[in-house]
Each structure stands twice: as C-alpha cells, then as structure tokens.
C-alpha cells in the first residue's frame, strides 16, 4: 500500500487494516469486470443482463453538470469489487479478527446487544456479518444482505428490485446497478411493528475503493420499521467512491423511517440515490445526516403515490475544510391529499461549502396537497459558503406550498451573553451550533445524538477564536 494516512486528529475512524482480500477485480471498469462480479456471485442470468445493460447506460450518461465538482473522480483508477472474506457470518466470534477488530473499535457488536433488533456489517464490497434477533425472524421479518436475498427470495427480490430507481435514472445509479454488491434487504410483513431499529454499518477499508451497496426495503401494509445506517472509512491520500442506491416501498398505511449518519473520511466522494415510494396513507421519513466525505451529492426523495400519503425529509449537513455537502430532499406529489415536509439545517465552517438543493413538485390532480420546506444555514466564518437551490413546481390549483430559508452567522449578542456567563468563545459557539441543529438531532436514536454532538464539537475545535 502506497497510501499514507493523513494526520487529522478529530476523525477517530481514520485507521485502516492491511487489505487481505479474498477476491478482487482488476482496477478499472469494463464488461469483463462486471461479468467477473456476477460470475463470482453465481448470479442468475437475468441479473448479469441487468448489470450489463446498466454498464451501457453508465457509459452513455454524462455526470451531472450542476451540483458539486466531480471532475476529480477517476473512474479508471478505482477498484469496483473487493471481497474481504470467503463467507458471511452470523456470529461475531467467527468474523476474521482484523474485520471484527474494526467493528469493535466503531462499537457495533456492543450496540447490537443493547439497542438493536438486527445488524448488518459491510466491509468493502461484501456484507461480512448479518444477524436478526429471533423474535423478529419468527414474525416473518426478513433482514439479510441483498446478495443473499437474490438467492434466497428470488421472487420477492425480482418483483421490487430496480422498480423505484430504474437503471436509467442517472449515471451514478447506472454505475451502482452495474457493479452493486452488498447492502440490506428488508421485508416487513403486514401489520408487523419492528419497534427497535435495524442497523447496517458500512465500512470502506481498501484504498481507491468503490463501494456500491444496494438496499431494498419493502414495508407491507400497516407495518413499521426504523432502519439506521452509519458509514466510515480510513483516511487515504487518494480518493474513494461511495455510490449507493436505496429503494424503499412503503405500502398502504405502513411507515418507514430511514436514518443515515454519514461520517466518511474526507477523501470519499459520496454520491447516493435514495428514493421512497409511498402508497395510500403510508408515511416515509428520511433523516439524513451528512458530516463526512469530500463531496456529497444526495437528495433523499419521497414519491407520494397514494391518497393521503405523507413524506418527511430532515437533512443535516456539516461542511468543514475541503468539504462540499450538496444535500437536500425531494417530494413528488402524485396523488390527492398528500403532504410533505422538508427541513434542512446546514453549518459551514473553515472554508466548507454546504448547499441545499431540493425540489417539490405537485402534479395536476394532486388536490388538497400540502408541502412545507424550511432551510436554515449557519455560516461560521468568512471563508465558508452556503447556497440554497430550491425548485418548486405546482401544476394544481388546490394546494398549499410554503418555502422559507434563512442564512445567518452566530449572533454577537448570543455569544456575548454566553461568554458573560463564563463560557469560552469556542464552548459558546459549540452550544449555539448544537442548539441550531437540535430539531434534527432530537429525532436520532440517543447514542447517535450523543455521537453527533461530540463530532460537531470536535470538528469546530480551533475553528473559532
């Protein structure tokens, strides 16, 4: 390995393990690489054809010309598939020592025991550990890695795979479709409420790695699930790519909450397509926290496809030095009496740039629909930047749509007050920032909320004063 870790004390997940891959495709992307992945996974013919068609789309499509600067991505200098282990495990004791040690450091096995209904752990291209507590298995809940789902539940898989985000959606979704590996597959049967979260943890270990997990969640009528994902990576001097696709189907009266705390190291391009299709009276929620990565482009979407469907996006972006968080959300109202709320909070510090990019579209016929978008941005210094790009399209008379945004710095009076009570400037600033993002943080599971506050205080150390 030529890559040397760059010293950055505040990122505690920057360590890396020697790469001991079991199977790895050569650098770069072509038909042979895609065939090799499919062959190695022993996939059915239709999946190989799906991948090859997606590869063609990827080659034809252009990178988006709007949004963040993606010119630094060298698609030819990337590894598209690295399998760290021959097998998948359901007991942490069996997981290879290096990999297990990584997850121990991040704290996954401990959290599993305490707060979670099930855990999946992906290391580079493959899910190495997956387990669901027996109670939920007995109720018919399926929680496996996506590759296993293709073999074990072929009919269910094929019925929904690629239906919410088609291959042709965008260049990165096409890339994911061509080389996808890992991710979670979840099915919640009718009326089942999984009342403690399911969690997946994504780790990139190898340098110049592309991680392309593919997640598919189906919440059947009247069911409920909360899925939490976390992501970290080592710090390398070369860039890695994370291009996931997440498809979620929320059936009649069901509710899905999807929480992401993205804390990639600052050499990862994080370009993710996430979309929920919400049927009648269903409720889809995205809680999307973007703290890490060099560049993020991610706009979780809710497609409100049935009468009375509800969608909510809570987006939190924190852009420090050298980072561009281009995040936001989309709500597409396709049916009457649908409601959506998008709340975005962003903080830019130390030359970071955060952009809110969002869309609300209400088609003709979606009568009685309501949408409200609120974005607030905090700019902590003169070097940083904040943008807001909201698109509102209304083709129906009987709607209520509101959008509000504000950009500000930390109020002098607030700072003065706190400092007069004996706080240092840094502590006072940290307190104000934590107060600013509180509406989103309070929606997170407790251990994440604590971690988030800690991360933000660390990221701001030395940035003021």
């Amino acid at each position, binding site marked *: 390995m030529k890559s040397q870790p760059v010293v950055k004390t505040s990122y505690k997940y920057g360590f890396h393990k020697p790469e001991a891959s079991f199977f790895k495709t050569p650098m770069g992307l072509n038909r042979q690489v895609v065939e090799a992945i499919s062959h190695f996974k022993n996939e059915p013919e239709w999946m190989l054809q799906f991948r090859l068609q997606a590869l063609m789309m990827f080659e034809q499509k252009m990178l988006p010309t709007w949004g963040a600067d993606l010119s630094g991505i060298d698609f030819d200098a990337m590894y598209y598939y690295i399998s760290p282990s021959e097998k998948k495990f359901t007991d942490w004791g069996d997981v290879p020592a290096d990999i297990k040690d990584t997850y121990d450091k991040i704290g996954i096995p401990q959290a599993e025991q305490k707060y979670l209904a099930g855990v999946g752990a992906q290391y580079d291209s493959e899910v190495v550990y997956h387990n669901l507590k027996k109670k939920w298995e007995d109720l018919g809940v399926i929680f496996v890695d996506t590759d296993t789902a293709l073999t074990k539940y072929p009919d269910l898989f094929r019925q929904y795979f690629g239906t919410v985000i088609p291959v042709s959606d965008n260049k990165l979704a096409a890339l994911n479709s061509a080389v996808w590996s890992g991710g979670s597959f979840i099915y919640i049967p009718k009326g089942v409420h999984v009342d403690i979260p399911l969690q997946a943890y994504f780790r990139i270990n190898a340098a110049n790695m592309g991680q392309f997990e593919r997640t598919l969640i189906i919440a059947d009528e009247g069911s409920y699930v909360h899925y939490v994902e976390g992501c970290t990576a080592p710090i390398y001097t070369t860039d890695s790519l994370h291009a996931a696709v997440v498809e979620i189907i929320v059936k009649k009266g069901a509710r899905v909450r999807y929480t992401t705390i993205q804390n990639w190291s600052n050499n990862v391009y994080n370009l993710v397509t996430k979309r929920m299709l919400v049927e009648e009276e269903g409720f889809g929620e995205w809680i999307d926290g973007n703290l890490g990565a060099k560049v993020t482009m991610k706009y979780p979407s809710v497609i409100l496809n049935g009468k009375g469907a509800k969608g909510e996006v809570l987006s939190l972006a924190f852009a420090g030095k050298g980072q561009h968080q281009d995040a936001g959300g989309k709500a597409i109202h396709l049916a009457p009496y649908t409601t959506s709320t998008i709340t975005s909070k962003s903080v830019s510090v130390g030359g970071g740039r955060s952009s809110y990019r969002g869309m609300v579209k209400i088609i*003709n016929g979606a009568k009685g629909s309501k949408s409200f978008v609120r974005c607030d*941005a905090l*700019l*902590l*210094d*003169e070097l*940083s*930047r*904040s*943008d*807001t*790009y*909201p*698109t*509102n*399209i*209304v*083709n*129906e*008379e*009987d*709607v*209520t*749509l*509101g*959008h*509000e*945004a*504000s*950009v*500000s*710095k930390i109020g002098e009076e607030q700072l003065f007050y706190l400092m007069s009570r004996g706080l240092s400037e840094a502590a006072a600033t940290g307190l104000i920032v934590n107060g600013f993002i509180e509406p989103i943080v309070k929606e997170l599971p407790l251990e994440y909320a604590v971690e988030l506050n800690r991360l933000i205080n660390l990221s701001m150390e030395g940035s003021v004063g």
Partner: protein
Amino acid sequence: MKSIVVKKNEEKVITVLWIGKETELSYDIKLAGIGSSIKFLGLIIGKGMQTLTLNVKVTHAAPQTTSKIIIKSVLTESAKVDIEGLVKIDPGAKGTNAWLAAHLLLLSERAKGRAVPSLEILENDIKAGHATTVGRINDMEVFYLMSRGLSRKTAKNLIVEGFLREMIEQFPKNLSQTAERELRL
C-alpha cells in the same frame, strides 16, 4: 436582458408589471457601491395561454448593501410562469441584507407555476432569507365574504386585490392603473 448597476449609497426601485406581452424578462442587478440598495417589485398577471420566464439575479459586490426582491403572481386559465431568482453575496460584502420572495396565486385548474429562488452566499457577516408560497384562494375567506352578502366573484376579486394591494400602492400611477384594469377581468 437588462443590466442594472447600483452605485455607492444609491437607492434604486424597479417596478415591473407583466400582463402577457413578453415571454421572457431578465434582470441582472449589481450592487456595486458601498451602501447601495435595490428594491425590485414584480407583478405578474397571466391569463389565457400566456407564459413567462422571469429571471432576476442580484449580486451583492460591496459592503452594507441591501436587496429586497418581491414577486407576486396571479394566474388564471392556462397561464404559466417560471420564476428564477438568484441572490449572490460576494466575499467581503459585509453587513449585507438580502430578501427574496415569490408568491404565486393560482386561480385555475390549468394554471402552472415554477419558482426557484436561489441563494449563493460567500460571506458570513450578512442576513439573507427567502420565501416562496404557492396556493389558491382560501375557501374559508370566500365563505366569510359571501356570508356578508358578496357574490362569489366579488369575494374572489376582493381577495386577489388584497393579495396585491400592498405592491400596487408602491407602483407609479400609470402602472398601478394598468394593473387594476387587468385585474378587473
């Protein structure tokens, strides 16, 4: 495209009334001098098959500059409007205050609106905000007025007038008269 440069301590007011003549209007406003300010009032009354693309770009290139962009639009029949606003605050434009608002009232099943009010901010010692609303006439308000003896048509006209009154009052006389004439339809 109209280019407007506002100089040191200058206060400019721009009033625009659109009643269907042009299909595209573009304004590029630069607050070039310290203490300069701009107030842009846009009133858009669309009917029939009329369409409009309105671009308003404001650049704050100097400190202590103020911008207030307010666009109100009333659309009937199959009218369609596309509003693109962009407020840019350059580094160093300290003490800047920016406000960008677009309000659309749709009076027909077939009317269409698109509003993209964007902000690009590269300076932290500022205040900036924007707002968009899209909606129709509130049924409760119509019901209230009708219960006081007004016809439905008069009630609706009164509400539309109330929505635009504040802006029309700030218009020069010839424009406000034209606007009122158009609204009587």
